[in-house]
């Protein structure tokens, strides 16, 4: 399959720290856009997608510790309880790091099914904490993990392309 060949080549390629940091910041920005009403329910968790992407393709660089730290910032940005996003992203990063070899072998369609499970787990942990502390549940919250899963393929293609572009520019 042509695509999986190209991915397996790209895994080896280096990526700069600035690019990783910028992608995470951009994801935080996208999460912070003025989503309202039904769009807030459907909002994909961009930070989770980007973190999972880096945990899959650069598990030595972006791991559980960094995801936890980003989670703390997400907690401050969303004014959720300290550790709520951090716990969810810790599990997400664990899933990404454990499954990174398998995900790298797969093509995008197979990846999407695998990634769906990780997102459901992440969302479930977040919702469970909320349920424990506040005592009620908003089920529409789980729509977000569907949209996040759907965005996995486009976002990973985009990030791959941007890495490729940076590579080409550096070579010149």
């Amino acid at each position: 399959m042509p695509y999986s060949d190209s991915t397996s080549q790209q895994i080896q390629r280096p990526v700069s720290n600035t690019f990783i940091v910028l992608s995470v910041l951009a994801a935080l920005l996208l999460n912070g856009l003025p989503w309202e009403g039904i769009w807030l329910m459907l909002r994909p968790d961009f930070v989770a997608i980007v973190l999972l992407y880096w945990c899959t393709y650069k598990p030595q660089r972006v791991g559980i510790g960094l995801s936890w730290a980003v989670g703390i910032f997400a907690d401050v940005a969303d004014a959720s309880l300290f550790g709520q996003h951090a716990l969810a992203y810790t599990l997400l990063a664990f899933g990404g790091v454990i499954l990174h070899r398998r995900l790298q072998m797969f093509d995008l369609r197979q990846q999407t099914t695998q990634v769906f499970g990780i997102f459901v787990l992440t969302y479930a942990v977040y919702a469970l904490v909320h349920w424990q502390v506040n005592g009620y549940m908003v089920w529409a919250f789980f729509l977000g993990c569907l949209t996040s899963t759907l965005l996995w393929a486009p976002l990973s293609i985009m990030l791959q392309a941007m890495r490729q572009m940076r590579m080409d520019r550096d070579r010149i």
Partner: protein
Amino acid sequence: MIDNTQSFQFFNRGPSPAVRLVFFAVLSLLLLFVDARYRYLESTRSTLSVLVSPIQQLATMPSVLWQQTSSFLVTQHKLVDENKLLHQRHQRDAAQLSQFQALQQENQQLRNLLALAQRSEFTAQLAEIVYAERDVFKRRVLINKGANGNVRIGQVVMDDIGIVGQITRVYPWLSAVTLITEKDHAVPVQVLRNGLRTIVFGAGDTSQLSLRYMPVSSDIQEGDMLVTSGIDGIYPPGIPVARVEKIERDPAYPFARITCLPVAGVDSHRHLLILSGLPELPEPPVEQAAAAKPDKGKSRRKIPETH
């Protein structure tokens, strides 16, 4: 004991993912517990918020720009119309205001005669909504006045029509307002028509409010206005909160199901007023009851409330 059959590690990669997972998960749970129970971490949160706020400001830029351009492109015709309308409304309100002042004078005199405490005035501070919180579970907005603007936790926030919410968290330059539609947010109110006192609760997932624990036979009608009763010492009395939308009286249940809609533009307005300078209510006499309890023992009954 070193196992020689294990594969040799060329690179030291630190602890395994499982160890890291357990470490960070326990750390998160610890933070969660401390934050949910004791609220020790507010200063850390406000420090970190200084780092995060540039991103948030940047995220609100598109909508702010959109609003500015649309307000710039308003036609002159529309402005003239609006000006005329506002002028008319101003004249009408001015007439009503003079009447109101006369009534206030009269009320003050009557209260003096009856030796009742004066109704105190409150001052208001204007603030602007920066953004609504991006959390499905919560109904909160952030406004652009914080600890530097002398905003304190618990202050009441209203718009030009009625109560919007209450300040629940204060950052250096921002503060979070929990809206009255937040799940289980309670406001003590009374029915304007007959003075019936009750408490209105937020529904959480919709922009509605509900009156719980109202007997089926209680005198309440659709369209009734609910205003703050002011007996809690937090909300000033007489400010509109909600209008009764629907009443279901099912004899099978002891309480009627009453849904209300907030009168203030809880989800729509941009400018809000923070109320301050509310009078401190005298402390409820707890010590006397506590002191009187032990010597009388169980024979002493609780004093029934007079209301």
